[in-house]
């Protein structure tokens, strides 16, 4: 219980807080980090049912223990890396905005803890990812992590993952 509260206060402190844990993953040559608390689980890519007339990066829906969950391929969405689907393909199941969805990435690396000093603001640049979704750039040894506000990204109207009404809410 005490630990939970501890964690809670850390989340409450937000990204500017002292310590944050991030799950890191790769897309092409780039390394990204997302708030670990948004991650529900990590699983393989399997049994995806296609949805006709959906955007190309929405691979379809899967059955996650009785819940229908949409799968987004970030490699297609941001044109990074080669979309390959085999036993090594990884899906990160996220819990964002009260919804469950899966995102396909090239690989999951590890969980790292960053303190505020290790996070630098992202400069304005023409990246695949609009800077409005980037919390900052994290540095661990000689690795650079692009820290993404995954909730903001996934609920964005352009992702076409939710009804526009739900996005506005």
């Amino acid at each position: 219980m005490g630990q939970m509260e501890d964690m809670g206060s850390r989340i409450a402190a937000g990204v500017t807080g002292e310590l944050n844990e991030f799950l890191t993953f790769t897309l092409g040559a780039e390394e990204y980090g997302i708030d670990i608390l948004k991650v529900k689980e990590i699983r393989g890519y399997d049994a995806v049912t296609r949805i006709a007339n959906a955007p190309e990066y929405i691979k379809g829906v899967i059955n996650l223990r009785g819940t229908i969950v949409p799968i987004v391929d970030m490699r297609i969405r941001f044109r990074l890396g080669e979309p390959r689907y085999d036993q090594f393909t990884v899906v990160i199941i996220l819990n964002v905005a009260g919804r469950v969805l899966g995102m396909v990435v090239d690989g999951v690396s590890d969980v790292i803890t960053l303190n505020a000093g290790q996070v630098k603001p992202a400069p304005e640049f023409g990246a695949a990812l609009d800077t409005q979704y980037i919390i900052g750039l994290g540095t661990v040894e000689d690795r650079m992590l692009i820290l993404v506000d995954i909730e903001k990204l996934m609920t964005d109207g352009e992702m076409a993952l939710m009804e526009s009404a739900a996005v506005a809410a």
Partner: protein
Amino acid sequence: MSSTQSTPGNASAIDMSQFFQVFFDEAAEHLADMETQLLAVDPAEPDAESLNAIFRAAHSIKGGSGTFGFTDMAELTHEAETLLDRLRKRELQITVPMIDTLLEAGDVLRAQLARHRGESREQVDAAPIVRRLNALASETNEPQAAARSLSLQFTLIAQANFDMLLADLSRLGEITTLQGPDAGRNCKVGLLTDADDAEISVRLRTAAEPASIQVSVSGQESAPVADPGYGFFSDDPAPVRAEPADPGYGFFTDAPAAPGASAPHAAATESAASWGRRSTDDPNVVTAPAGRRGSDKQVVSPNGDSSSIRVGVDKVDQLINLVGELVITQAMLSQKAARLAAGENVDLSTGMADLERNTRDLQESVMSIRMLPMSFVFNRFPRMLRDLAAKLGKQVELKTIGEQTELDKGVIEKIADPMNHLVRNSVDHGIELPEERLAAGKPAHGTLTLRAYHQGGNIVIEVADDGKGLDRSKILAKATERGLKVSEAMSDQEVWLLIFEPGFSTADKVTDVSGRGVGMDVVKKNILALGGSVELESATGHGTRVIVRLPLTLAIMDGMSIAVRGDTYIIPLASVVELLQPGSREIKTVSGQGRVVEVRSEYLPVVSLSEVFGGESREADDKESIMVIVEVDGAKTALLVDELVGQHQVVVKSLEANYRRIPGISGATIMGDGRVALIMDIAALVKLARH
């Protein structure tokens, strides 16, 4: 004195809002109960027990609304209670205007409740109804000789409304002296009254710590302390009478167990405890005098003898989901086991058979939790009929058959409105005025029969009246006037179906009951949207019967699984008419674009699903594909699919929960192999293909 006003602010020591929902639910139940009982009262020979039951329901609402600070409801129920109290004591004879006024008071209360719930913003003006109740109840009481002067000493509980208590006490007699409440919430009230101890106990218990109450007699001699019947004036805090806890009145029975009821703030523990005790005591106190006054009859719970618990629908749905998963896992396991065992391992195969049976039983039991009896819908009609009949000057008797037939909660909620329309229509258009009926050799009062029963996997609901029936020539004339294609050669059945056309009403004049012609088409649309169907039978001079067929549940559906471009889809079986292999049958084009096929001298539009779901045309394959003829809104369409997979009962899951609406798809389901299959929305799909 007024500083003890019980408002939500005063009660903030414990978070009251968590109990609001309990109060709202209970109050709604008590209101419904009151209405049922009121409608059953025969003014000529009122049943003492039902008068008591009505009084108790009103009292429970008053107590709850006072505690939670909903003063408007408390004031109105207070007036209603005053009248009811006199009625049950036989000081007044119940009359029809009284029943009407009390019913109206119930309506106003319901509106107030809706406002507190945040369901409506409308301000409710209760003043007129309060005045009318007051007038009805205000025949003065003959002062009785046996007045005693009592001195009441007690400690107020934290939530008590002292003013209301005083108002309550003053109805028993005259308040002569008054001290307090002081800082310790101790009060002393002098009361000159002829009321017996039980009366006083009921009043006091709502606001005072039971253990703190002391009563001494300063006037004539009396020995209230010795009264063994109530034990009220002793210091024993135990419930007055060891009646079993009654779910109908256990207003707060689940409150002490509710999360956080033991109070987040330590300071509140004491008041919470006394509050909990008071609330469980309350029903006993109320029912005790009622039981005695109700002579030999036992106090009967208005909710019947079935005990129940209140559970959130989301919890039930979660349970249904989990069981659905279990069924799929079990199916996968038994497939694997069948391959593995192949006659060698008998233990394994018997174990798997047991597992399968248990899983199926479990699924059935869990699904039945969501089922509610039809009485949830039927119960609203006695009142509606009473009002309607009075307004139209007709006499209508209501018969309900099969109220215990169970139906999924989701369907029940959606069927209530269409049922309303049908019943209104029957009374307004079907059943004649008494003199017309007598002239036609029928009894003056018409009979409206509501019947529900199971038939196969469906539930059938009938609304039947013994009125004048539909008028064929009138409907045909009306249809011609509206430019519909009709002919005298049409069968009765076809003619009757015309009344489901939009804007169709044959009523000579528009009343505010019905006749505007918005209704039957909406009824039909709503029922079709539930996957059901409507039929109509009518015989001139003998009546009309509307037959509504509905699936038992929205969560489970009969579907046909088909394959299109390697993906599995489900077509709701309800919309499938027939299956055909086009073979040599030629698919022709109309003006180079739309394609049609001739099926039994009917030209049906052809929709290729692989085109709709894939985007490219593959006309070359059309001959190998299978045609599924579906019917939507009376129009048939031929769907071309690649392969027929099978027929299943599928559990319908929402796509919107985590994703969004997909055009032409109504939901999703999980197949036996654990994969997701999308369920087609045939109506939307056909529309989609046309554009």
